[in-house]
């Protein structure tokens, strides 16, 4: 008899649900793409594939910087990170033990995306 681990199933379902949401999000106006990274796998969907490495490095650095700064300033665990340039911004957050970074144009409402994803 196959015994299912309810916790694992729940997490897998959550990730599937998250990926469905991301598919919808990536088609929205102003969305450049996303990087979703778990401990064993990663899914990347960017409009410009030549930027994959640079964006992956930025995503990882944003999480590291977020963790280092919140530790230094005793702000507790990181909930969300926003990195803004003149034209582009990045929303990074942890969801179900996965690191998610969504790249978007600066006029996109990242709070709306956050509420949709959490």
């Amino acid at each position, binding site marked *: 008899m196959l015994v299912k681990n309810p916790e694992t199933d729940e997490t897998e379902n959550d990730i599937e649900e998250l990926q469905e949401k991301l598919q919808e999000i990536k088609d929205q106006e102003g969305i450049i793409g996303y990087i979703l990274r778990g401990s064993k796998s990663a899914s990347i969907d960017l409009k410009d594939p030549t930027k994959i490495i640079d964006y992956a*490095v930025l995503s990882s650095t944003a999480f*590291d910087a977020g963790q280092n700064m919140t530790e230094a300033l005793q702000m507790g665990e990181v909930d969300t990170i926003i990195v803004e340039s003149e034209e582009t911004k990045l929303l990074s957050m942890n969801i179900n033990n996965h690191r998610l970074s969504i790249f978007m144009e600066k006029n996109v409402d990242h709070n709306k995306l956050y509420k949709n994803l959490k």
Partner: protein
Amino acid sequence: MNRDPYAIALNSALTEIKKAYPDIKNSFIFTKNGTIITGDQETDEKTMNNVLESFENLKEKAKAIGNLKGFHITGKNGKLTLSKIKDMYLLLATSKNVDKSHIYSITHVIIPTILKTLESFAPTHLQSPSTKKLVVDTLRFFAGDSVQIDVEILKDWTENNDPRARVKAALTGEQNTQESINQVHIETFGGNAAVCKVKEINDQKLKGKNMIRIPEKLCKTLEINKGDLVKVKPAL
């Protein structure tokens, strides 16, 4: 910490802002070159340096999306807002429920107004302080006896950024000429110091990394190793 009158004025501003907005827990200001101008009294220099180190790394990687303008973190116990204001960055660490309009007022109205006012009072003090904290890289073999620094830093110093040059000009009444920097004063955190010739970094891969390349022999004299931080300023 910088004791330039400009830094003192900004320090007073941060102190008063903190009194007016009790949600602010930490605040400090640093230049785009990574030099801390001033910070509030509760934030120690080690904390500022830790934050700055992470930020400098992020700023470098963020070039993939353009020049970094802002960085915001929401943590379980607070929020961090890092905003670019003119040629500087202001960091504000606040409670989680801080009023967004307060942050906006500080980053878009109060600090820019103070900077503008200071600029109109004493334009020369708006320049970055001369001392830079740079990461040591060793130069091997027949690299000569000069150290190597980013051309941007040398330009920054050349463009009248050194307060001593400004004071000298003010005292002598001579124009503060934009002479190129030929020598630098290096000081280690262990207290060792040396003055030596300086050239710009010629290795493209090492440019823009806030680095000083020092001949191995001089590293031994100064008792420093690759990766150490040193304080560097122009030797007039």
